[in-house]
């Protein structure tokens, strides 16, 4: 069909509702006019208040030296060149003992707490992802007989207890990853970015200069990791870091919800094949949520975070808050070992995150 017949186009594509007088009511042109007018019902979006700031920040941090135009003036764009040099400066400057070099490393120092904890922040993902996980109220998955987490990172109930609630039979305490706790501690109240005061920058510079060589090398690796993140991932990391930096007592509840979500995600990762964990961390928010949903779909829990399998289906917690009817049909009344038989097939089956990867945990989570 030829576009030349567009009856509402007028002189341009946006010149829709200008039907000539005398058109009959059944004139197709009037139909198109109304369609064009119907589009007016669509809302004009309002960008998030932080979008400008994060975009400018990402442009500053994300631009690399190789992308600069040769011969371009460097003094006018205050954050650009430090931004380019930041992490390169950290690698080349601080690592080589030029810790006192003023400009090249300033940008790195502005974000030093983020760089130091980029691994934990990147694993956690984004505020959006964690909020969604928290909303779903997943219990923390555990490998039968032990936490699946990495050594030294679990707290509360850690060890060989076969029950999710620990030997006291109470509600399971959520093992927050040690890396996350370290990030929370390091970021709390820390200024980030351009608003970082000079005295804070000086203190951070001193901290870096005081590092032994191997620690500086590790820091430079993390700086490279930070720079290597996609723009979206870097944005998410910075957003998360800013939340942690700003979260005072008034935001404790929200932070706790996020921490619970971090624990769920971290333990889920711990159940994965170590070789594919990085691939899983790299998944988008939607893909992460989907993989979690598939995982939990195989083990009914209905949100009973503190369901005690030793009481089995129909049991209740000492405080009477148990939701026994929603209990795990796979569980045994005495909390004994559950069959590690094959997971159910069908829609709940787990999709490998990477081609050829086996995404299926070897044992079902002990808690459900």
């Amino acid at each position, binding site marked *: *069909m*030829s*576009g*030349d*017949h*567009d009856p*509402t*186009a007028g002189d*341009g*594509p*946006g010149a829709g509702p200008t039907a000539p007088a005398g058109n009959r009511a059944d004139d*197709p042109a009037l*139909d*198109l006019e*109304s*369609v*064009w*007018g*119907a*589009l007016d*019902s*669509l*809302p*004009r*979006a*309002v*960008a*998030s208040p932080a*979008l*400008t700031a*994060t*975009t*400018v920040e*990402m*442009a*500053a941090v*994300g*631009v690399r030296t190789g*992308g*600069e*135009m040769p011969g*371009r*003036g*460097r003094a*006018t*764009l*205050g*954050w*650009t060149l430090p931004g380019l040099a930041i992490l390169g400066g950290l690698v080349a400057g601080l690592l080589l003992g030029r810790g006192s070099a003023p400009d090249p490393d300033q940008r790195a120092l502005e974000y030093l707490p983020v760089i130091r904890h980029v691994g934990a922040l990147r694993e956690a993902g984004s505020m*959006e992802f964690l909020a969604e996980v928290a909303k779903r109220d997943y219990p923390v998955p555990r490998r039968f007989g032990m936490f699946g987490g990495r050594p030294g990172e679990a707290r509360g109930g850690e060890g060989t207890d076969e029950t999710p609630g620990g030997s006291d039979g109470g509600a399971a305490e959520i093992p927050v990853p040690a890396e996350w706790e370290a990030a929370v501690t390091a970021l709390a109240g820390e200024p980030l970015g351009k608003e970082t005061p000079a005295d804070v920058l000086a203190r951070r510079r001193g901290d870096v200069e005081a590092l032994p060589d191997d620690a500086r090398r590790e820091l430079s690796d993390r700086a490279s990791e930070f720079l290597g993140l996609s*723009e*979206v991932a870097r*944005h998410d990391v910075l957003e998360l870091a800013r939340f942690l930096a700003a979260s005072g007592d008034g935001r404790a509840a929200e932070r706790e919800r996020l921490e619970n979500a971090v624990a769920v995600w971290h333990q889920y990762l711990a159940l994965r094949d170590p070789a594919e964990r990085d691939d899983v961390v790299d998944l988008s928010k*939607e*893909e992460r949520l*989907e993989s979690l949903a598939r995982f939990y779909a195989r083990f009914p829990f209905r949100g009973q975070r503190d369901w005690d399998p030793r009481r089995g289906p129909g049991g209740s917690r000492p405080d009477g808050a148990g939701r026994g009817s929603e209990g795990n049909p796979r569980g045994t009344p005495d909390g004994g070992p559950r069959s590690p038989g094959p997971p159910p097939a069908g829609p709940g089956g787990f*999709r490998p995150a990477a*081609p050829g990867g086996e995404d299926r945990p070897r044992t079902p989570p002990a808690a459900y």
Partner: protein
Amino acid sequence: MTPSTDPSADLMLRVRADDAEAFEELVALWQGRLVTLFLHHTGDHSTAEDLAQEVFLRVYRARGTYKPTARFSTWIHTIANNVASDLKQRAYRRLEKGVPVSASASQGEIGLDQLAVAASGQRPARQMDRSELQDVVQEAIARLGDNQRMALLLAKFEHCSYEEIAAAMGLTVPAVKSLLFRARDQLRTALAPYEREGLR
């Protein structure tokens, strides 16, 4: 178009000269428009913001190549269309990997008949309020082809001429006219049941 008649081009020239404040102003000036464009292209506000941000980052990275020989809007619309196309490619790659795509952006060119049938099945007996109309129109737009949808959105929300849309999308003007005509025709089909009951 000389820079003096195009404020965005003026800003972009300052960005090209490494003026950080100009970039911030440019982002502030354009972010609402781009988020709106991508919101109606993808159906998801969060994705729309991500895509708008990606456009700005590409603008920044390419600032050295900017020449004010054409309208700035044409330049940024070209980048926006490229970003939208990349999104589609990523969606295809996800499908190849077996990950379902939730966004409407890749559904394209299917389901108009279904929508019309659905519409007739739930034909409202009263004048639709704005919210309902909005849902119906969004649903109809989501079912357009990617190029149809982008061309339509550029025309409707960015008030682009045929020539500007053609330049932004790398198409000929007749192809754009055809795209737009078919897009509107399909929308008319999809919305007809509602229109009879009070679309206007």
